[in-house]
């Protein structure tokens, strides 16, 4: 394996092993399960016709991401681990790439967990269990660049909180001028339930978000790179 990818994969694996044992992941996973269970309890106890909603899937997913979605760069900065790794044992670019890879892997790994729980609570409703984890994984991926920027700029351990606050602030600010619907459409968030083709605009924006994330990662790795002294000369 190419050394660059080898380093990136090693850092990603290290980060993921840290997360697996972390209380925040356990709390996030437990909160997701509890809220989804509550949503389904309300659903199954509602008099027919039962409501055609997400049965608290959205709240459950956002809560889980609120506590567990992060790149881990702020925590490494606090502990002094980032300084140790980036520039000494690997390059800043590989370090950042490893963190991004770990976060994307985490996001993708959460989807099957959400799917299994959704399938179990909905008593085998495949369409429901496939639709919401897919939709919310795409939504989370759409906001990854914002999460990355918030974590790096503010060095906070819960960047999703900032992104949520910012999102609703911007939404409120734009609402008088464009209306919420226009903003929602702009972000590709207007979808039709259980209609996969309605996810295409969102998927397109996720691809753009991926490019944006790569650019931000490059900027971040440049800012971490050692500042070269003036008039450096090498023989």
């Amino acid at each position, binding site marked *: 394996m190419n050394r660059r990818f080898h380093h990136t994969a*090693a850092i990603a694996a*290290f980060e993921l092993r840290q997360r697996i044992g972390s209380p925040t992941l356990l709390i996030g996973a437990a909160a997701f399960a509890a809220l989804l269970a509550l949503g389904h309890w309300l659903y199954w106890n509602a008099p027919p016709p039962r409501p055609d909603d997400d049965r608290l899937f959205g709240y459950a997913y956002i809560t889980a991401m609120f506590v567990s979605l992060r790149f881990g760069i702020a925590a490494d900065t606090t502990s002094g681990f980032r*300084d*140790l790794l980036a520039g000494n044992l690997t390059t800043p670019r590989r370090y950042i790439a490893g963190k991004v890879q770990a976060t994307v892997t985490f996001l993708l790994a959460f989807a099957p967990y959400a799917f299994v729980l959704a399938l179990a609570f909905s008593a085998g409703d495949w369409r429901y269990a496939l639709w919401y984890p897919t939709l919310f994984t795409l939504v989370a991926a759409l906001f990854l660049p914002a999460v990355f920027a918030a974590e790096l700029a503010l060095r906070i351990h819960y960047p999703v909180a900032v992104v949520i606050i910012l999102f609703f602030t911007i939404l409120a600010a734009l609402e008088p001028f464009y209306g919420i619907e226009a903003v929602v459409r702009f972000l590709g968030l207007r979808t039709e339930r259980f209609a996969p083709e309605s996810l295409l605009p969102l998927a397109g924006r996720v691809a753009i978000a991926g490019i944006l994330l790569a650019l931000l990662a490059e900027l971040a790795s440049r800012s971490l790179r*050692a500042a*070269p*002294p*003036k008039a450096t000369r*090498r023989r």
Partner: protein
Amino acid sequence: MVPLPDALTPNPTWRLRVEGLGIRRRRTWIVAGFTWEHHPGHIAWITGENGAGKSSLLRVLAGRARPTTGSISWDGPPGQRPLRLYYHPTMGLPPRSTLGDWRRLLASLGEGEPTVPGAWTLDPGRAPADRRLGQISTGEARRVLLAGLLGRAAPFLLLDEPYEHLSAGARDRLTEILVRIARESVVVVATNREIPARAADGPVLRLDGTRVEPATAPREVL
């Protein structure tokens, strides 16, 4: 104490060179008009009072900060990467990771890279691999961290207060490792402590106001 393998040989090809270096922190000059060069062979020491600017100078020498004036070069054989390892006391290990995970990461990152024989002996190796890094003592954590860092062979090694939190035995072992690394690499250490006698044959830079006083024997200075 485990004897260190004698695999490192003097390498005079690397050179740290400083010309007319000036470092200003806020409105105070720490160093001004400093010209100096250092080769492998002996450890160079930076000493001075608290706040004298030892860490700032070392950061600049490591290329982690820009000098206000002057230039620094890390010269070496053509085509070889002048890797600079830099340590400062606020570096740490992620508390939630285990020793085993850390060692696995080190092994992965160091695969195919030149290593320093015997640097691992600084790692006390007492704690089990599944012990979290946040649960080992401060001194043990320093040793684990330093062992990992020093295990990577690099032509330039710049250490800021590496003796902090180490026991007397660990300090001796660290000195022994540094002396061996210094035969082949440019090693500069900033310290508040007394310079170990076995490594006292290198130059000492004493920071005193804006002056840097190079001295050949540390006892003339301390």
